[in-house]
């Protein structure tokens, strides 16, 4: 569904590349986590899939198409096949829940009757029945993210990209959101989620692709947020790579917390 062949992305000639010769394939119907510290290249990866940026070299294939070969007037069609969810929800504050979701259908010219039929269905899928007429500020963060997910999938895209969708949410709400994303994945949508949230990754036990400094350093099925490789070795490698130990500590802390929760 998504294939990266030797993809390099350079923003600034003098700095190291944001992505460095990435080779990666994500199959149809897969659920993959993209993990790594800030600046590791997760967002660049997502932007390349959406053709928001062009790869400096290498080829990006989405649904079998080389995105570099898609002419600019056909980019909208590519994007109709991809839903996107962000950390900050990006809802339209003056529109109701229903109107926010309907907006995504209106702008691509869907008829009113189709919208009236589809939107309630999708809202039901994300668990927002009965909240059609609320405004975004009347909802909790988790509910707002559900609206954003509903908007992203209302046009039935084959791919759902989620850029830290739980970054602004508490752990319980986050798990709720993951339930929704999992349900969407069960329905056949390929889901790629960039995240920092170790609890979630450890709970879901899906494929994990770890990026560091633009390079894939780990790609494991049914994996955890941190590698299975012994901790001593890993912390040395972290120090070597970035000189930033705290991220390692953070991860370790998170895991400890998660373990505690599991006991409760």
């Amino acid at each position, binding site marked *: 569904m998504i294939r990266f062949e030797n993809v390099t992305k350079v923003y600034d000639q003098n700095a190291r590349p944001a992505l460095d010769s990435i080779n990666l394939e994500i199959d149809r119907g897969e659920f993959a986590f993209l993990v790594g510290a800030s600046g590791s290249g997760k967002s660049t990866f997502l932007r390349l899939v*959406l053709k928001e940026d062009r790869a400096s070299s290498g080829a990006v294939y989405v649904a079998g198409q080389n995105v570099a070969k898609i002419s*600019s*007037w056909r980019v*909208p*069609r*590519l*994007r*109709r*096949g*991809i*839903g*996107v969810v962000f950390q900050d929800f*990006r809802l*339209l504050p003056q529109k109701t829940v229903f109107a926010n979701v309907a*907006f*995504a259908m*209106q*702008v*691509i*010219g*869907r*008829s*009113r009757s189709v919208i009236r039929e589809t939107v309630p269905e999708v809202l039901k899928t994300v668990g927002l029945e009965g909240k059609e007429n609320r405004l975004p500020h009347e909802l909790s963060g988790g509910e707002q993210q559900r609206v954003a997910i509903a*908007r*992203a999938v209302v*046009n039935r895209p084959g791919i759902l990209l989620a850029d830290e969708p739980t970054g602004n949410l508490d752990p319980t709400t986050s798990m709720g959101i993951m339930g929704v994303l999992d349900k969407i994945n069960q329905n056949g949508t390929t889901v790629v989620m960039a995240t920092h949230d170790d609890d979630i990754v450890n709970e879901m036990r899906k494929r994990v692709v770890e990026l560091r400094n633009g390079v894939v350093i780990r790609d494991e099925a049914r994996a955890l947020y941190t590698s299975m490789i012994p901790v001593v070795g890993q912390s040395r490698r972290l120090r070597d790579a970035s000189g930033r130990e705290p991220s390692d500590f953070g991860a370790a802390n998170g895991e400890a917390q998660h373990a505690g929760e599991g006991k409760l």
Partner: protein
Amino acid sequence: MRLAFVLAEIGSGLRRNLSMVVSVILVTFVSLTFVGAAGMLQLQINQMKGYWYDKVQVAVFLCSDGSTAPGCASGPATPEQQANLRKLLQSPAVAQYVNDFQFESKDEAYKHFKEQFSNSPIVDSVTPDQLPASFRINLKDPEKYEVISENFSSQAGVESVIDQRQLLERLFSAMNAASLVAVSVAGVMIVCAILLIATTIRLSAFSRRRETGIMRLVGASKMVIQLPFILEGVIAAVIGAALASGTLWAVAHFFLGGVLSKQYPDTAFISPAQTLLLAPALIGLGVLLAGTSSLLTLRRYLRV
């Protein structure tokens, strides 16, 4: 559905940006009024030229019933006098200066008069008898007016010899200068309008960047995203152009028709209906201005 959506977007954009939209309307209104004023001056010049101006230089008017000139003491010009004049025009002494000439009978004179003064009440009180017949002469060299004047002024049956160009040229050059000034002012104002439209579109694009960002993400086409912005500018410019057209009409109706035509009954003025001919040109110009400047702005400030 898509049309309804685009219209709703335009409506919300216009409301959100009301003060900028009003200023775009006013600036296009003023600039197109100046463009229209230049157009009106040219129309007026054409009106005053009448049927003969571009064809001949000199008119030899024959005596008619009401003539009071000394040469006409013996009454209206007789057919013999008329034949004599024609012979004189064809004689070698005069013919060498003449390109060609035409005779305008009283009836033809009346026809041309009616055309030129169609907007003036004077047309109802004039009959063919009151208008003199004339020879209209096209000179090889327009400067040789004196030759004709000397040869014909003293002929029997000639009321007067008039060099039309001399009469109107000065007035026309003043009017041409005025339309040049109007066009220059219009040029400055149009630059102003273009920049203002660009700023307005930019502001509008900025205030709706959330919506357009989402539209982009869910795969809205370039047209659906950009059209509301372009139409916003075009609508404002069309309103400005319509106001300018209305103003020109009002000037023709109340000032030319109501005031000047009463003060100068012997001058032909353009009618209010004629100024409306300028309206499509002004509206077209407004659409062109707004369309191009918003397209260029969007290319820079609204990524699709």
